[in-house]
């Protein structure tokens, strides 16, 4: 299925979970939203992504 991750198109196996998509992310300092809604880390494992969704994965960077 096709999704958008941080603005870039991504091709993923159907029913990939958010945990799977983000398993290479650091254990902390990261948060994700799907179609604008925050998905708590605890729910990543059970959160199945669907065709056309937009995933945003953010972390803290230097800022004023």
């Amino acid at each position: 299925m096709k999704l958008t991750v941080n603005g870039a198109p991504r091709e993923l196996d159907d029913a990939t979970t958010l945990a799977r998509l983000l398993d290479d992310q650091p254990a902390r300092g990261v948060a994700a939203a799907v179609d604008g809604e925050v998905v708590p880390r605890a729910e990543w494992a059970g959160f199945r992504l669907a065709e056309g969704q937009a995933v945003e994965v953010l972390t803290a960077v230097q800022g004023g």
Partner: protein
Amino acid sequence: MSDDPFVIAGVEFPSRLILGTGGAPSMRVVDEVIAASGTAMCTVAMRRISPGTSGSLIDVLERRGVRILPNTAGCRTAQEAVRTAELAREALSTDWVKLEVVADERTLLPDAVELLDAAETLVAQGFTVLPYTNDDPVLARRLQQAGCVAVMPLGSPIGSGLGILNPHNIELIVAEARVPVILDAGIGTASDAALAMELGCAAVLLASSVTRAQHPAAMATAVAAAVTAGRLARLAGRIPKRHHAQASSPTEGMAVL
């Protein structure tokens, strides 16, 4: 004088200088300016994670033991700001947020309507909100009424280094504030920071003036000393301004020579 705690939302901070980490050329400089400034709270921005992104910023901040204050820099609407705050809370395990909702990239000035809207929403969601606002005393009042734990008026546009363009407004804000007033944005150098405190601000938040100075660590030390100086001067009770002179040496006892 000795006992002059600085408290935001029940949390006491050992330093009245809040440091933005933006603009520093390297993580090493971030580390140096935090150490040199003695700050106890630093702001960070939330951005898309990139392969390159190392978690080192958070590591540095935690090693230095400073509180992390995520901001919503770059957000143009209440919705963007609220969602960014939610993500920051999830990522950094803090419900404190420096709320920024700006109107455009050229002025980076706050949008009063969106800002107030976002503040009300976030307070309702249990966030501890510190809004970056303009120097309008009325908006500052409304933000307090909305439940913000501090108000952070600008001295001049972000990164402009123009100092405090309208001290009269800052005085009006301080005069009626029931929460800490933190001068945010516009500080260019030490005397600006001292003036902010003399006007009655409880603290100063700055980034560019330190991170973009030719010698960041030295400027960090400078503004930290200036904040202390300005706060003490405020408490010490300055002499009144006089149109004419007043001798500091005795006028009597002059010899005839």
